[in-house]
């Protein structure tokens, strides 16, 4: 019994502690849940795309290979999404999943 306890204690000391997370929440922008067009496949990035010092949410999707940019307006709020543009039109990455 003592040996078992020792193994448990030593094991716990040697193992890195697994991270703990709060229950997940869906990201929202302007009070609405962020979601992508059918058939789905949301691919998020958290990056300061407009170089204003605050990281923004960019969400790629399967349909059209398009990316929606939700600018960070501060205090944990995101603005309404706008499609990322490239060469003057909505950017579409070909053959994306």
């Amino acid at each position, binding site marked *: 019994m003592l040996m078992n306890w020792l193994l448990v204690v030593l094991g716990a000391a040697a193992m890195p502690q*697994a991270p703990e997370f709060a229950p997940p929440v*869906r990201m929202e922008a302007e009070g609405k849940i962020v979601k992508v067009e059918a058939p789905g*496949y949301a691919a998020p990035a958290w990056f300061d795309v407009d170089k204003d010092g605050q990281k923004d949410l960019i969400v790629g999707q399967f349909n059209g290979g398009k990316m929606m940019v939700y600018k960070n307006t501060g205090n944990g709020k995101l603005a309404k999404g706008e499609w990322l543009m490239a*060469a*003057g039109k909505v*950017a579409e990455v070909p*053959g994306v999943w």
Partner: protein
Amino acid sequence: MELNGDGLIDILSGSYSRHDGDMAGLFQVLWGQKDGSFAAPEALKGTDGEPLIILTEDSEEALVDKICTRPIAVDLDGDGKLDIVSGNFGGTFAFFKGEGNGKFAPKSTWIESDTRKISVEHHSDPFLVDWDKDGDFDLLSGSAEGGAFLFVNEGTKTAPKFGVRTTLIAAPKQAAEEVIGDAHITGPQSSTRIWADDVNGDGKPDLLLGDSVSLVFPAKGVSDQEALAKIKEFGEKFSKAYESMGNSEEPPSEEAMKKMQAEIEVLTAEKAKFVTEESTGYVWLFLQK
């Protein structure tokens, strides 16, 4: 990310196929412009001037390993030049050594742990970050089945060596039967895409997980029970229509295929009177405690 050293943010993406020649994934880059906009996507090329493609064995089975999913550019080997780590449909991870200024060696190698390729259950989705704060890059990934996985770098900043896969977020269990509505969606579903950053500024890395989800709602005036019964009936009739093509090893005749398609169209139209379906994807935030 800033890929070619010009100080402008670029966007790098994987893609599923090139449309001429053998099927393969191409890396698409949207080069950042001085006015803050982006150029149209173009295939990223290696130092040989050819589009960068994951190097695989020349076999049909290896085809899925050639289809790149998410690439990420970081200086993985600590030589001061950005490298590319890419996922693929098969679930492994490819490494392209950087030559500087947005140029990459054309031949990729596999990221391994003790001579075995590290992997997830299809559609690897690498994100590199110093998760354990020991000064080197660790590898995170989503997968086709969902969840979030971590490969701790047990090597050094200049000689990475990834350990076994551990689970940060477990993949969801598949429901045995169809579920009506979206109240049961309390976390990410399948096809997870990962990003890690300190979103709430508390000094600890958090996770953003994108997913893919299929939802079923009863049509107006239809109860959940009626909708479930109709879905079950649809499934049975669909199976019967499929079985009508026969169980032969030979492909079904054109006539049999047309008959089945017509039956399915009728069944689908009937089903739509009772349920509406939605396929979408959400972005889930996991704040680390």
